């Protein structure tokens, strides 16, 4: 594919070799600091350079076979699932007066209902059948960084959802509001949370939503709660309801 010269370095011109070596150095992680970020910026602006990086990645790829496998703890997957439901930029919330694009979050949430089903089947090996109408359910609502913020129990016999705060929430003047999101459905408001535990009424609609793999999520809303009937603020915590 290259017309080979007598030189050991191959036929590519010295300028081209420089560029190709910069790509290889990036792939091998040989450079630090500025050189590394310059290579990265160049790759995003220059498809030819990005292709050189891809080529080196492919060349060295078989070395990955030398790396032994280590099964990560289950908590890693749980944190990943938590992150994709509430993208990590919600963590930077205190500096952000308004949530940028809450729609994205709710799209991710919808996708997560599929995920919740997958987790259930693969990780938890819990029954996938709808919960019995009177069975109590529990959810640990975690922040995007994996910290548990609330534990919620849903008791159909009492038509109530009890939410106990277990972590620090920086609400900064706003009201944390609890929502239920049925598999493939839209968020339905349950009620506002307080600093101490809250017992909120579970309506027939909420109970019906909770039958199959529902997600509970908490968003930060203007004082008094969302006035639109849909979440408007960032999601600070979420978790899947499971039979108790």
């Amino acid at each position, binding site marked *: 594919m290259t017309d080979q010269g007598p030189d050991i370095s191959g036929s590519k011109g010295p300028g081209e070799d420089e560029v190709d070596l910069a790509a290889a150095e990036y792939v091998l*992680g*040989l450079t630090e600091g500025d050189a590394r970020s310059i290579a990265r910026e160049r790759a995003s602006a220059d498809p030819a350079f990005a292709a050189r990086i891809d080529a080196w990645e492919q060349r060295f790829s078989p070395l990955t076979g030398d790396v032994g*496998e280590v099964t*990560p703890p289950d908590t890693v997957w749980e944190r990943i699932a938590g992150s994709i439901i509430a993208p990590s930029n919600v963590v930077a919330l205190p500096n952000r007066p308004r949530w940028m694009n809450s729609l994205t979050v709710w799209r991710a949430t919808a996708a997560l209902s599929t*995920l919740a089903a997958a987790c259930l089947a693969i990780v938890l090996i819990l029954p996938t059948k709808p919960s019995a109408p009177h069975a109590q359910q529990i959810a640990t609502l975690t922040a995007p960084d994996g910290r548990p913020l609330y534990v919620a129990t849903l008791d159909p016999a009492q038509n109530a959802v009890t939410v106990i705060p277990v972590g620090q929430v920086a609400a900064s003047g706003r009201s944390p509001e609890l929502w239920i999101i049925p598999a493939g459905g839209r968020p339905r408001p349950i009620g506002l949370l307080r600093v101490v535990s809250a017992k909120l009424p579970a309506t027939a609609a909420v109970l019906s939503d909770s039958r199959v793999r529902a997600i509970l999520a908490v968003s930060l809303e203007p004082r008094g709660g969302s006035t639109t009937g849909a979440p408007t603020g960032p999601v600070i915590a979420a978790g899947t309801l499971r039979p108790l």
Partner: protein
Amino acid sequence: MELERRRQALSDALQRVGQGDAAALKDVYDRTSAKLFGVCLRILGEPSESEDVLQEVYVTVWRRAGGFDPARASPITWLAAIARNRSIDRARAAHPERYRPIEQGLAVADAAPSAQVNLENEEDRQRLAHCLGGLDEPQQSAIKSAFLDGCTYEALAREAGVPLGTMKSWIRRALLKLRVCLER
């Protein structure tokens, strides 16, 4: 062929992740997390830091899978590159003074041979081994160490006890030689 079938399954799953299918992300995770965790551990050494990075890796996969092009990269190459880059960035940010991964990481990561995903093409592996074998020993191990352990020129020079400039020119010459050999 078994390898081809598994590679195809992973590639398909990645493409579904690109369309926002979260269940497919779990599939990708089940197929690759042990290998990628090994990659992170080998570079970072420290398990809890490696877990953080592994989480970032799959969140990145979730966001970027739409850009995965099976015509340009094999799925495991694409994934391992994300894991390596994230780990290197973390290692450089957290321990700029460190030049070798701590021993624990090496020991842990090398404990288990590949069982979950051996998605590397055997022919490619042999060709790379042959071409690396054609390099002088210090260059050969320096290149492997850079790729697997995330070592910089500076770290490699310190390790080998040679000046930085010497290590740079060793490796750059070796890389060009390697490229010629691999393209043959």
